């Protein structure tokens, strides 16, 4: 029959499917079994025998033939003196052919110790029968023992047998009836206390007692200095001698109680909680800590205080600072400007990847990406560092990544991990960070999961108080409420300025030039192009500077010289541009002082001329002023001028909080730079609401940037530092400004451009939502528990 052929095939296929399905279920059952096994282990270690036994039974059901599981059964049995359980385990082992000869002996002794004479006799006989083939230690001794046990069991059985026949009441419980003494076997019960419990069921956890050497102690004297002191030609006065001794006494009182580096930090004012945090890390955590203050509290400053302190005390002479690429230059700048530490970085123009000499310098700031690249990693891992600092350490949350492995293999004495969000999705992330600091602090990953993680919710820990105790030995997390940071809110307004016809013409010509440059020499002219675009957003005067320089140096010109000259001619503008007029109106409309941020020199000159022309009193602050001139400029602004025109460099340590209005005359493309500007006045000490006016030309790149940063993600209302966290989620290693530039240059049509910027906006919005979720989670998890 033809039909039956296909039927059979169908049946066969069905049967096959059934089989596959069954196998899959079996596999899942097995997996579950192992989970139960782990659970039983955990509960038993935690002292909850009931739960352990229950889990054990489930494990046995799923994995009846697994020796590991049976061993655990026996282990639990022996530890709880549950004979039945132990015997059950032995029987099961026998069934699966895993009964070792040692355990056979054990069983006999076990039965004896529980006075199970009948079975004991049976097993003893069995052992004696196979004795020549047994593979055990101390064979002769064991043989004698088993024989002894066999005899004893026989006698005891006989005794019990007789005892049963005599009515109970005739035998006093505590005394053998006279004349019946011989009923009891004369030999003593063979010792069970000293039974060779050697391989007991699961081998008990005996950790090797490691030989831990004493720490080396070395003694150094500087010979030349002895000669120097003892052969000085002129003796000193007694006063000088005594003052010298007193000066040392004063210095010694400054243990970590006092941070000695602070007195040399003239450019920043550190906050009390930052200083206390540094002291705690130095004294209590002894240089290995997770710094996870909430965003905006200055973890970088804390880490750098610790670093400077170690350096000043001579305890740290080498170090590696690892950060995401976009933050390298920020670290470099903070270190030099605030801590007077000039450290080479992978952002330096001199840096070449794979150059050994670079990595052999005492201190280096490196992007994690550079550090982990095959070219560089060998140099980094070969040497020793006194200290490692990792910023945005949540990038090390995953143990299987190269980031984690890199930091794990680095040779280091001290290590600081900085992150505001140690947990993003899973407590294991925290485990991984802490294990970098102190391997073993949270035991093994398996043990950590068992002890502290609930099934189902990887963010909700159990055994909280134990976990808290362990974490508080390595982690510090200050909150804004502890720091007492209460700054009035800030508000931003985008002011779109319609360009004049002439300006539009200038922008279009420039745009054409830029696109043409970009097409001809992609990559090479990239920096110049990005600059020109950013300058166009500032003022034509800023562009003019660059074009002039290009013509002079014959840079990136190729066959564009003609066109460059043409565009340069269009840069000449009048003073009363719409942008300047808008600024003037703004200045005249308020009685408050205003800071005007400008990035480019050309623009500054142009603006200064305009303000002078309009009799606006202003001070000028820029990077090429001396410190005294800078102080004078700020003093003047504080006391009599209405406007401060400033480039962003070098204002950091100076108090400008008396002013609450600022204008971004041009807009940095890098949001962190925007934040730095805001941070000059929106900081502790500000008593008024801060107003931020962002200028942009309609339809310009800045217009798009503001649309994303202000309208889509409300950056101007966020806490300072949060934008880093959000950008860190999207850009990977690419800077926001580069993404923006790429979109601008690569879009063929306006529609395409709109769509790409909208896409970027969406990405940022999602990143913000993700960040906020994490922030909330960490707030819930850690709260104020790990504050100072």
């Amino acid at each position, binding site marked *: 029959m033809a039909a039956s052929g296909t039927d059979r095939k169908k049946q066969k296929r069905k049967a096959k499917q059934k089989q596959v399905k069954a196998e899959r279920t079996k596999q899942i059952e097995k997996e579950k079994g192992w989970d139960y096994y782990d659970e039983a282990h955990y509960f038993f270690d935690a002292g909850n025998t009931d739960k352990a036994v229950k889990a054990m039974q489930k494990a046995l059901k799923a994995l009846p033939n697994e020796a590991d599981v049976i061993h655990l059964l026996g282990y639990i049995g022996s530890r709880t003196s549950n004979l039945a359980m132990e015997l059950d385990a032995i029987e099961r082992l026998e069934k699966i052919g895993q009964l070792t000869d040692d355990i056979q002996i054990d069983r006999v002794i076990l039965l004896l110790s529980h006075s199970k004479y009948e079975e004991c006799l049976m097993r003893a006989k069995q052992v004696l029968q196979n004795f020549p083939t047994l593979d055990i230690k101390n064979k002769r001794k064991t043989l004698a023992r088993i024989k002894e046990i066999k005899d004893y069991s026989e006698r005891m059985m006989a005794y019990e047998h007789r005892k049963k026949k005599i009515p109970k009441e005739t035998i006093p419980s505590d005394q053998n009836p006279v004349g019946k003494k011989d009923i009891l076997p004369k030999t003593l019960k063979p010792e069970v206390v000293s039974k060779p419990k050697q391989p007991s069921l699961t081998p008990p956890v005996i950790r090797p007692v490691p030989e831990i050497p004493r720490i080396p102690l070395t*003694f150094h004297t*500087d*010979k030349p200095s002895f000669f120097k002191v003892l052969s000085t030609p002129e003796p000193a006065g007694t006063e000088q001698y005594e003052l010298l001794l*007193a000066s040392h006494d004063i210095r010694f009182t400054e243990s970590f109680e006092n941070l000695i580096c602070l007195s040399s930090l003239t450019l920043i004012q550190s906050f009390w909680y930052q200083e206390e945090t540094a002291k705690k890390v130095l004294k209590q955590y002894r240089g290995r800590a997770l710094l996870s203050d909430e965003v905006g509290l200055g973890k970088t400053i804390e880490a750098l205080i610790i670093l400077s302190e170690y350096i000043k005390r001579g305890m740290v002479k080498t170090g590696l600072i690892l950060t995401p690429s976009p933050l390298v230059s920020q670290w470099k700048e903070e270190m030099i400007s605030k801590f007077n530490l000039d450290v080479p970085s992978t952002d330096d123009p001199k840096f070449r990847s794979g150059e050994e000499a670079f990595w052999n310098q005492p201190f280096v700031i490196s992007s994690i990406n550079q550090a982990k690249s095959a070219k560089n990693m060998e140099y980094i891992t070969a040497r020793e560092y006194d200290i490692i600092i990792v910023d945005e350490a949540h990038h090390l949350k995953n143990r299987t990544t190269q980031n984690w492995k890199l930091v794990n293999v680095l040779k280091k004495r001290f290590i600081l991990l900085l992150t505001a969000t140690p947990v993003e999705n899973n407590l294991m992330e925290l485990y991984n960070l802490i294990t970098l600091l102190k391997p073993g602090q949270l035991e093994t990953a398996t043990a950590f999961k068992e002890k502290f993680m609930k099934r189902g919710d990887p963010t909700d820990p159990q055994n909280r108080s134990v976990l808290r105790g362990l974490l508080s030995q390595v982690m510090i997390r200050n909150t804004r409420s502890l720091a007492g940071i209460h700054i009035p809110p800030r508000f931003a307004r985008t002011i779109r300025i319609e360009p004049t016809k002439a300006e539009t013409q200038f922008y279009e010509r420039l745009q054409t030039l830029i696109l043409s440059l970009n097409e001809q020499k992609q990559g090479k002219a990239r920096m110049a192009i990005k600059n020109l675009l950013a300058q166009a957003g500032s003022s034509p005067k800023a562009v003019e500077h660059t074009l002039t320089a290009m013509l002079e140096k014959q840079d990136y010109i190729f066959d564009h010289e003609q066109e460059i000259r043409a565009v340069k001619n269009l840069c000449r503008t009048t003073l009363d541009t719409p942008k300047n007029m808008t600024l003037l109106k703004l200045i005249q409309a308020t009685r408050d002082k205003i800071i005007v941020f400008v990035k480019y020199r050309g623009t500054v000159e142009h603006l200064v001329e305009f303000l002078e022309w309009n009799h606006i009193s202003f001070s000028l602050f820029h990077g090429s002023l001396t410190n005294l001139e800078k102080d004078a400029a700020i003093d003047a602004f504080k006391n009599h001028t209405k406007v401060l025109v400033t480039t962003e460099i070098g204002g950091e340590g100076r108090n400008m909080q008396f002013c609450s209005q600022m204008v971004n005359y041009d807009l940095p493309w890098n949001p962190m730079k925007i934040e730095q500007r805001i941070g000059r006045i929106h900081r502790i000490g500000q008593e008024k609401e801060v107003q931020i006016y962002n200028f942009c030309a309609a339809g310009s790149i800045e217009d798009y940037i503001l649309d994303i940063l202000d309208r889509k993600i409300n950056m101007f209302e966020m806490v300072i530092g949060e934008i880093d966290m959000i950008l860190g989620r999207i850009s990977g290693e690419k800077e926001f400004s580069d993404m923006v530039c790429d979109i601008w240059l690569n879009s063929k049509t306006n529609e395409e451009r709109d769509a790409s910027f909208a896409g970027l906006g969406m990405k940022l919005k999602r990143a913000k939502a993700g960040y906020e979720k994490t922030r909330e989670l960490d707030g819930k998890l850690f709260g104020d528990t790990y504050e100072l």
Partner: protein
Amino acid sequence: MNSDTQKNNVDLMDFACRFFKSRGAALESGMDFTDILVPPDLARSLEVEELITVVSEKAGSKESDMKNRYPMQFQSPLLERITSLAGAKPTFLQAELKFEYIKTQGFDRLITEAFDRNRTKIRITGTGVARTRYLILTSLYQAQSDELKEGLMDFCFNLDTGALIPDMIEPLTHVQKEYPTERVLICSPKEIENIYDQINQNGKKAIEEKLSHFVESMNRRFKRDAGSLEEYYHDLTREMEAGLSRTGLSERLILEREEKIALIPAELNTKKQDLLNKYSIRIDFQPVAALAIITPCVKVFAELMSGRQKAAISLIYNPVTKHMDPVVCKSCGTSSYSLTCCDCMHLNCRACLMKGCTLCGGKK
């Protein structure tokens, strides 16, 4: 740990004023404050104006905002600059001691009490007043582990005998001194070399004793951390090994895991080395001040006798300590109160006597 008690002992105001005075400043003191006219050079190196007011800690807190006013308290930048300037250059001071009375007899009893003689007999043959030179060398020690411990330590030598003199500093404060402004006491390079050797030899011993608490605490920490590290890697290995025997692992996976397990000991070793580096103690010793003393003393000449052997020695009575100075072992150079001799009548300390005198090649 020791800061509070010490803090109270140091009068920062007084210290600062003395400092300025010693550097040629003009001072005018008021209640809780002192106006100071600072010499231009000093003002520049201290980064202050030429006319300043230093105020005591109590008065300072409320007015520290005012210009040219500097509260003298710990952590103040000016104090830090003053101390580092005052402590910057090692100083050499010399003093001549004056005594109205120095004992001239009764050395017999003093020597019998002070020295351990074994079977050697001693007979005083004469005494005479002489001059001798002492040196008190103050050294800065810095013991660095994962914390820093520093302090000053004094060693006192008799430059003429090379002996290390205990307990000389405290009684010295009660002795009348003169401070010659020209250098009268010159240490020869050989003497300096000898001092340097002594410091190396005795300094290490003394510092270890002084820092024994610190050293022990570092050892404890290391032991605890290393232990927990061992435990962690041991557990990890066990866990990974247990994981191997589970069913359902492909051979490739097993191989991979076995490779990982094999790498654990190496990782453990690096981490242990990290800890060892973190805790290992390095002690740096650096002289910061020296006080050279010229003083009268009494030289006691004596004869040591052991069996038929005799040897003439001289001992020094130190008028500052009012005690005999120790003698120096001819074999190892340590100072001791032991007048024990080898068979050839060389002075040897007890330890060297057991090992054998180095001068005559091991004979007892």
